[in-house]
C-alpha cells in the first residue's frame, strides 16, 4: 500500500508541506516494502491556476491510494476522490511524523476540502 505526502524535501526527515497543489515534491512511501520514492511537483509552482488539479493527477499516477497533506482545496479534493484516493490533513511537522500518525491510526480521513478554492 502506497501513501503520498506533500514535502519540500527529499527524505522522511523533510518537512511536510502544508500546501497540496504547490508543494514542490510528493514523497510516496510503500508500506509493504518500507521504501519510498520522491516525485517532482514543481511544474505547479508557477501555474496560474489549477495547481491542485495537476498535483492530484500526479498523485494518482504514483498509484498511491492515500494522501497526507496540510490542506486540500475543493478542486483537488474532487479529482482525488474521483481517483479513489483517501485524503488526510494533519499539522505534523515532518513526513516521518505524519507517517507515524498514519500508521498509528491517528489520522482521520477527510470528508471534504478543508480550505476554500481560489478564484481565477
Amino acid at each position, binding site marked *: 500500500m502506497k501513501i503520498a505526502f506533500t514535502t519540500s524535501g527529499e527524505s522522511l526527515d523533510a518537512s511536510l508541506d502544508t500546501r497540496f497543489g504547490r508543494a514542490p515534491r510528493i514523497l510516496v512511501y510503500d508500506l509493504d516494502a518500507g521504501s519510498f520514492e520522491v516525485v517532482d511537483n514543481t511544474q505547479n509552482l508557477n501555474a496560474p*491556476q*489549477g*495547481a491542485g*488539479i*495537476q498535483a492530484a*493527477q500526479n498523485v494518482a499516477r504514483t498509484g498511491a491510494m492515500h494522501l497526507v497533506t496540510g490542506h486540500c482545496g475543493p478542486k483537488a479534493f474532487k479529482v482525488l476522490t*474521483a481517483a479513489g484516493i483517501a485524503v488526510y490533513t494533519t499539522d505534523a511537522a515532518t513526513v516521518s511524523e505524519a507517517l507515524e500518525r498514519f500508521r498509528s491510526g491517528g489520522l482521520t480521513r477527510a470528508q471534504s476540502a478543508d480550505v476554500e478554492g481560489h478564484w*481565477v
Partner: protein
Amino acid sequence: MIISVASGKGGTGKTTVSANLARVWPSPVQLLDCDVEEPNCHLFIKGGLKSQDVVSMRVPQVDAALCNGCGACSALCEFNAIASLKDEALVFEELCHGCGGCTLVCPTRAITEKDRRIGEIEVMEAGHISLVQGRIDVGVAMAPPVIRAVKDRIDPGKTAILDAPPGTSCPVIATVKDTDLVILVTEPTPFGLHDLRLACDMVRELGLPFGVVINRVGAGDERVHVFCRDEGVPILLEIPDDRRIAEAYSRGELMVDALGEYRGLFEGLMHTVQGLRTRTRREDHADL
C-alpha cells in the same frame, strides 16, 4: 470611429465621460458598457429595452464511455481545466478559457463542446443613443469573453463609445484593443497619477493613440498636469471639482443635462476627439 474610455484608477469618472460624451454626440451613437462586472451606464441613459440575449462560451464535455484516460487533454490545457485519470476526465468549467484544444487532441473523440452561460447582453434605446450593456453572471470569474460579445455588437456605421472597467488587466485590454482612440480619465491626486502612469504604459504597449481627461480639477495638486506636459500626453478635457456635478451624478442625471454650463465642455471634447481622429488618419497615410 471607436473610442474607449479607460482609467487605471477606479472612480475617476469613466462613466461620466462616456455617458456625457454620448449625450452631446451630434449623430446616432452607440454607448457600450464593457464594465461587465458592474455595468452602470444604464443609471444615466434611461432607455427602453430592445433586446436581451444570453452570452455563452464553449466548454468541453467528456463522454466517459469513449475516454481511455490517455491524458492528452490535460497535458495540453494551460489552465488545468481538465484532469485526466485512469479512465475518465474531469472538467472544471470555471477554469476553461474555451480554446477548444482538448477536443482536437482527444484521440478517441470523447470530448465534445457545449455552451456554458456566462452572462447576458441588453440593448436599450434612448434617443440617438443605443446602449449596449454586458453583464457577467454571478460566480463567473472571466470577463473578457463577455466583453468581446459586447464589442461584437459594434455597428461600423455609427460612432461607438466604450466604457471600460478600471485597472490595466485583461478586461481592460479586451475593451481598449482595436479601438481608434483611448481616453484615460484621471484625477489630480497621488493615486490618480500613480494609476495614470500604469494606464499610459498599457496603451503605449498596445500602440493606441490616447489622451487624458482630468476630472475634479482643483481637488488635488498639479502633478498630473506636470506629468502630462513632460510626457507629451494631450489633455483633452478638464472637469472642475464642483459639488453640484457629484449631486447630479448621485441623482442619476447627466452633467450636460443637469448643469447646462458644462455642456460646452463635452462638445469641446467631442470636437477634440474628432480632430485627433482626423490627425491620426493623416499620420497613418504619411507612414505609408
